């Protein structure tokens, strides 16, 4: 028997600073520790078969992260979750296991929430809206084929702003996944440059979507 399942987890707190490669190793160990009936690759150096839908940038919190594994025996999902969590550090928590409805490659967009702690949320909101009102926002983007200059204004123009005491909250949906994504910090970096001040923003990735903005499942 072989059955692919999708494991949903959050990556918060200290785990924000764990790179994708390190996360991969951490998960492999948790599976090993949990002694789950998993499929191992059959190469020279067998290892647990694991694929992640859309790696999260270093420093971001993620609440809707997913990875696919291949079971060789059926195991009740609650048991799988419990065993896996027992082998994970407490800032990485598995909260659901589902049968995949889409392919990992289908992830094409993501929703991010950016939190800026400030004494003057309204002022910060005006300033950032001012940046978005510029005719264009050119940034250097590091890509596989070298750096290139991109206008990110179209991506960030629909950003939603919300203020709370001491906090400016921004929500934006951006391209993500294997086909290339737009990192929300591109806008923050550009705004810092334009405004000439440092912006301490916490980024959280809250949801994943396919190219038609259907929730990734």
């Amino acid at each position, binding site marked *: 028997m072989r059955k692919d399942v999708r494991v949903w987890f959050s990556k918060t707190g200290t785990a924000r*600073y764990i790179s994708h490669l*390190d996360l991969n190793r*951490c998960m492999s160990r*948790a599976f090993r*520790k949990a002694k789950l009936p998993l499929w191992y690759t059959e190469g020279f150096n067998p290892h647990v078969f694991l694929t992640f839908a859309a790696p999260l940038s*270093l*420093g971001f919190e993620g609440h809707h992260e997913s990875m696919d594994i291949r079971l060789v025996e059926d195991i009740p999902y609650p048991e799988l979750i419990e065993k896996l969590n027992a082998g994970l*550090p407490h800032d990485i928590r598995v909260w659901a296991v589902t049968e995949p409805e889409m392919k990992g490659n289908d992830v094409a967009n993501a929703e991010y929430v950016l939190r800026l*702690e400030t004494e003057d949320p309204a002022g910060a909101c005006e300033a950032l809206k001012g940046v978005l009102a510029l005719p264009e926002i050119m940034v250097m983007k590091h890509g596989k084929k070298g750096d290139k200059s991109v206008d990110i204004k179209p991506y960030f123009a629909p950003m939603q702003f919300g203020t709370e005491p001491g906090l400016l909250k921004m929500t934006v949906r951006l391209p993500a996944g294997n086909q290339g994504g737009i990192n929300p910090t591109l806008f923050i970096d550009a705004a810092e440059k334009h405004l000439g001040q440092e912006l*301490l923003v916490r980024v959280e990735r809250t949801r994943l979507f396919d190219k038609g903005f259907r929730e990734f499942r």
Partner: protein
Amino acid sequence: MLKLCAVSVIIGENRKTTIRKAVSMLNRKLDKILPKVQKPGRYVGGELNSVIKNKEDVDVRFAFCFPDTYEIGMSHLGIKILYSLFNRVDYIWCERVFAPWVDMEQAMLENDIPLYALESGDPVRDFDFIGFTLQYELSFTNILNMLRLSGVPLLSRDRTELKNIVIAGGPCVCNPEPLTDFFDLFLLGDGEEVDLEVIELYRKCRAENKTKRDFLLEAAKIEGVYVPSLYDVEYNADGTVNRYIPKEGAPATIRKRVCTDVDNMYFPESFIVPFLDIVHDRAVVEVLRGCIRGCRFCQAGFLYRPFREKSVETVNRQAKSLCETTGYDEISLSSLSTSDYSHLFELLDTLHTWTEDERVSASLPSLRVDNFSTELTDKIASVRKSGLTFAPEAGTQRMRDVINKNVTEDELKRTVTIAFNNSWTKVKLYFMIGLPTETEEDVAGITALGQKVIDWYYEAENRSKGKRVSVTVSAAAFVPKPFTPFQWFGQDTMETLEKKQKLLKSSATSRKLTVNYHGAQTSFLEAVFARGDRKLNAVLLEANRRGLRFDGWADCFDFDAWMQIFADLGIDPAFYANRQRSFDEVLPWDHLDYGIKKSFLIEECKRAYAAQTTPNCREQCSNCGVACFKGGLCVEKRC
């Protein structure tokens, strides 16, 4: 007797909140800098099996400081043992601290973030104990730098209260004299034995409102505890030590502590599992402590005597427990010389009863030339075919006899032939240059031996045909160390070492032979501090003022800056490194007792110069003195 409990990794929601609050204050500042530094995972903690306690519930907070990067420190077995040992005690919370890399250090200074412990995020200056492990002389500057980043006064005498007790253990504690101004006390020998007694004493003293001085006076009465401030040193006109004068009832000599029952010696059931790819990322079980060999250059071989082995059952149980709690798929059977373990094959067979099913492999950290076999390589799956490493240490038989590395050319030939016939094509050989009595012939003998290994490849009948053999010889500069028969030896000057390095390089003629050597400058500095005295405290303090740290890292090591400091302070480093000492000189570590008799070391030194070997402890007892501890091989033989 201390009350012990299981390691409490907290789950309770209310406890978690308290801790989170403490961390989050710091986090706001850290969030700003972490995304900008290399490998931020070094600075956040949160790993599997790290221990979180509620600080309100503990009496003693211990900051275990490793004076190097996270990746180096987390690979060290000692920190894992002591971390778990301390945290098993209800009233102690031991946390980890590593030296921030230079980019993080810069960011911390700019943002006014003091050095903090990884578990709670609390500043190191809030801790009762600040404990360092002294592994390597070139990490001494990192110790001072970490104290400075903590905002703790560097000098012991400036820390007047009963808190921030700065202590150290580890191999370099066998001569801690260059650090006596900074440390309150040193712990000699096995930490499993002595450390908790000192912590318990501190707790008692604080409960009774005693002063730091009261505590230190009491601590000095514990065997294995060296309180440097309780000793005055008199020097001779030529700068050598005249005598150590103990004060206020401090013992004239301080004897190291030894665990004789290694089967019942504390060993952790679990390790912290780092996120980052550290240097040794695997489960490690110590199979034995000490070494039977008596190689005369090797300090560890003398410091960790007597030779004590764990039983197969103990090692197997500890290995299994570690794999279960960590998820590691590799177990390293660690010790100074694991292939000398009496029951090695029995152990490997026992491990095999479960490791195969669990996809776990066992490995040995090093192999000896004289007991390598096909049987052994068959049993150790993880000796990958990529390359084999052996340490003949010297190029000629005469030189190997001088250092008592009892390995012959025939044994090396036999070993590499087995390896070549089993499809290995890469061999790495470790050597030293600058050994006592070394001649040009001995140096050229290193590359000659490398060349012979290449020739033996072509003589090996079952070698992998069509593959190219590659032999690397790597030569480190010899650093004479305390408590070895070479402790009196004047190290070769840097000029001599560089000449020998050139000779080594030029004597290699084959492209199949690669010659590497390690810096003469770092070895010189290492020699200075390894056998230094209290006058070097001033040098370290000045080095700290001038911003020196990470001297063990090529990208930070600044030799000219060091020489400038010596010149400015009027201290001649050659006095410590290159001066040949006489047997009757009082050495700065003579008041420390590792069980090895000085008369034995003198005898061994004389035998070395006569190129006479000494049998290993298993063959015959040489009466080194450590039988005084009444443990291990020393007593087994008498049964």
